[in-house]
């Protein structure tokens, strides 16, 4: 499968908040294993959806300053309800703090207004060239690609000033 845990970014407020949607479909292969008798979006994919929403909040806010943004820490991630095929998970991330290398966020995922997941996470951001200057070209190519994918996610995005 493709590793896209968001289908659409709905709204974006620089440095503050981003909301995105993940649709869950029985067409997704992994649902046959998770679980054979009860297909539901795996809990770690809710975490991945929150991470990807956070990554986009950072990228759009700082205009692609870093080629790598990864999940460094997750805390108090609580699964309140299952997300089953045919439903949409709406993920909202809010920035709660940052320093040069880290961005702290809290997140909440809902299905039709009902809470499915909530928690906090810390993203780490950097460029490969920070450690190894010869990688600067790769950083640049990665960021170019990331910019191209933005359009696929933001067609219907509302930017809040």
């Amino acid at each position, binding site marked *: 499968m493709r590793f896209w845990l968001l289908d659409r970014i709905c709204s974006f407020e620089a440095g503050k908040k981003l909301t995105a949607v993940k649709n869950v479909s029985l067409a997704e292969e992994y649902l046959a294993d998770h679980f054979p008798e009860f297909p539901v979006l795996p809990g770690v994919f809710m975490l991945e959806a929150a991470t990807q929403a956070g990554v986009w909040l950072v990228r759009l806010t700082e205009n692609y300053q870093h080629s790598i943004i990864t999940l460094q820490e997750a*805390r*108090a991630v*609580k*699964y*309140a309800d299952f997300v089953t095929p045919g439903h949409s998970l709406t993920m909202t991330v809010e920035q709660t703090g940052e320093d040069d290398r880290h961005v702290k966020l*809290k997140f909440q995922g809902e299905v039709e207004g009902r809470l499915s997941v909530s928690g906090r996470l810390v993203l780490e951001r950097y460029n490969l060239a920070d450690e190894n200057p010869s990688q600067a070209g790769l950083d640049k190519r990665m960021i170019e690609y990331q910019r191209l994918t933005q359009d696929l996610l933001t067609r219907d995005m509302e930017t809040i000033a």
Partner: protein
Amino acid sequence: MATEDEIFDKVREALVDALGVDDDEVTAEATLQGDLDAESIDFLDIVFRLEKAFDIKIERGELFPEDILTDTEFVQDGKVNEAGIAKLKERMPFADLAKFEAEPIVQNLGQQLTVKDMCNFVAHKLAA
């Protein structure tokens, strides 16, 4: 022997870590379910952290006597009867049940549990 302040600090740390809340949200009066949004899975987490922090063993129903609340001898029409209240007081000497007594609806007991009750529970365990 841990002082009241030491107990509160460790309980607060456990709640901050388990619930992802901020330090200043954890006041003595804050209710676990109402103010701090603790859910049933969190109680597993909280109990686990308290056991580690204070080197104690917390058995099922000790902090929250769910067995009484599901016993028809003590509960009628969703309310805890007098015998049930007496039993709760015996099992929960660490909690202030005055408010619950005034309106002993089963669900209220969990919702009224405060950080202070939690600290008293730990002090009670440490003294035992």
